[in-house]
């Protein structure tokens, strides 16, 4: 028997009885795991109030969303600081933190899973202030950033990291709308259908 399989058997009971061992994680799991998860459909841009979406809800997202990651965020914030207009108006929009692989001929997009969200924490509150309704990424974010989501009635959604092939299947169209020179980090406008997300 493999070591993983052997240990899984040994720890079966122990794991159920034992509480999580770190405070960092305790906070995360109580926020994100609910016994009976509910599924809601959401259309982007988001015009309704989504402040009531509880952590752990599954969201099936359809509509128009925008991709941006490290470099595009940095440039957007510099643009705002110079008093200039952003490539798209963040009001009611959702940003997806992804840098897809190049698109093959005949395909809509390459592999397009979420990247770690914490790297966008310094930039996100300024966008939320402009009416951004949500971000899609993976992993924990800073308390300050999560407070800004709550303050502006916006939500942080989780996609499953490392499943970029699967996620690419719910993307119906993709076009670069800004920062083309950034390659994978350019801002893309995506049409998605039933993109499966978890409310953080």
């Amino acid at each position, binding site marked *: 028997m*493999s*070591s*993983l*399989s052997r*240990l*899984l*058997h*040994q*720890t*079966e009971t*122990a*794991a*159920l009885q*034992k*509480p*999580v*061992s*770190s405070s*960092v*994680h*305790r906070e*995360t*799991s109580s926020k*994100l*795991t609910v016994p009976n*998860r509910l599924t809601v459909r959401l259309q982007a841009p988001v015009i309704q109030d989504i402040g009531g979406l509880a952590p*752990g809800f599954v969201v099936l997202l359809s509509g128009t969303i925008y991709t941006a990651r490290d*470099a595009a965020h940095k440039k957007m914030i510099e643009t705002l600081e110079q008093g200039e207009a952003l490539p798209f108006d963040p009001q009611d929009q959702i940003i997806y933190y*992804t*840098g*897809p*692989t*190049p*698109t*093959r001929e005949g395909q809509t997009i*390459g*592999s*397009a*899973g979420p*990247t*770690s969200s*914490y790297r966008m924490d310094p930039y996100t509150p300024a966008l939320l202030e402009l009416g951004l309704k949500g971000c899609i990424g*993976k*992993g*924990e974010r800073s308390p300050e950033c999560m407070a800004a989501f709550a303050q502006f009635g916006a939500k942080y959604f*989780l996609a*499953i*990291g*490392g*499943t*970029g*092939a*699967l996620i*690419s*299947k719910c993307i119906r169209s993709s076009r670069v709308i800004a920062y083309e020179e*950034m*390659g*994978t980090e350019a801002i893309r406008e995506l049409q998605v259908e039933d993109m*499966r997300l*978890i409310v953080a």
Partner: protein
Amino acid sequence: MPSKPKVPGPQVQSLQDTLEPRHFDCGLLRDAVEQAVQNACIRLPPDVERNLELGLKQEKSDLAKEILQQIIDNSQLARNEQIPLCQDTGLQVVYLNVGRSVHFLSDPYEAINEGIRRGYTKGHLRKSVVRHPIDRQNTGDNTPAVIHTRIVEGNKVQITLAPKGAGSENMSRLKMFSPSAGREDIAQYVIETVTQGGGKPCPPLIVGLGIGGNFENCAELAKEALLRPLNDNSPDPIAAEMEDDLLRRILECGVGPMGLGGRTSAIGVKVNVAPCHIASLPVAVNLQCHAARHASIIL
């Protein structure tokens, strides 16, 4: 002809057929790398898939089960439709084992980088390397790779490619312990690394632990540990005990798939040890996400 890519073994493979000097055409190396980078990015090694399935069978939480199922579905879809498993097709970490009777007819490092350049372009893989850590201009071809070279017996060349994503690499840690620290101090440091990382390094993880050597060597030990088959144990009895103990404790730590709770926080813990200075106890924890891709070829 390059042989079929396969999961690399725990030991450096003996490359000895004969010590007859061999004039080695680096075009062979370039072409093998070009193929292997493309294969590695769309195919999970069978031992990784198997352990993910084991995790799924044992998982109690519905959310964790759903996440593991999607990870498994993703790997099947990627293989069937030739789509990269993950959009982060990584920085290429290359292990080049050179038989001591090999005489390269041109620069093997340039051949490896040229193979990567071609493979990443033809395979539509993401170019994720910047030329300078501060000015951050993308090199546009995913080069240069990080290349570790070792001289071994024989007249063959073994090349192992491990594209490494940044999510798990960024959550890895290194600490210079005092030799007064015990196994338990090291174990706690490892568990802390896993729990602090939470969902960011994309668990289920493979945890590579390097103990000993010096500052840079312990990091190399940790990284190389990630290439071992998932179901082996270290031949070193202390390291083997630590592997079992750490895996058991990580399964209990509660992080779970993507940090959302559950038992499958890791699918393997590998500990590599090396001699060290009387005053040192270097420890490095290199985390590997569930998309643990690699390929190895002997030429």
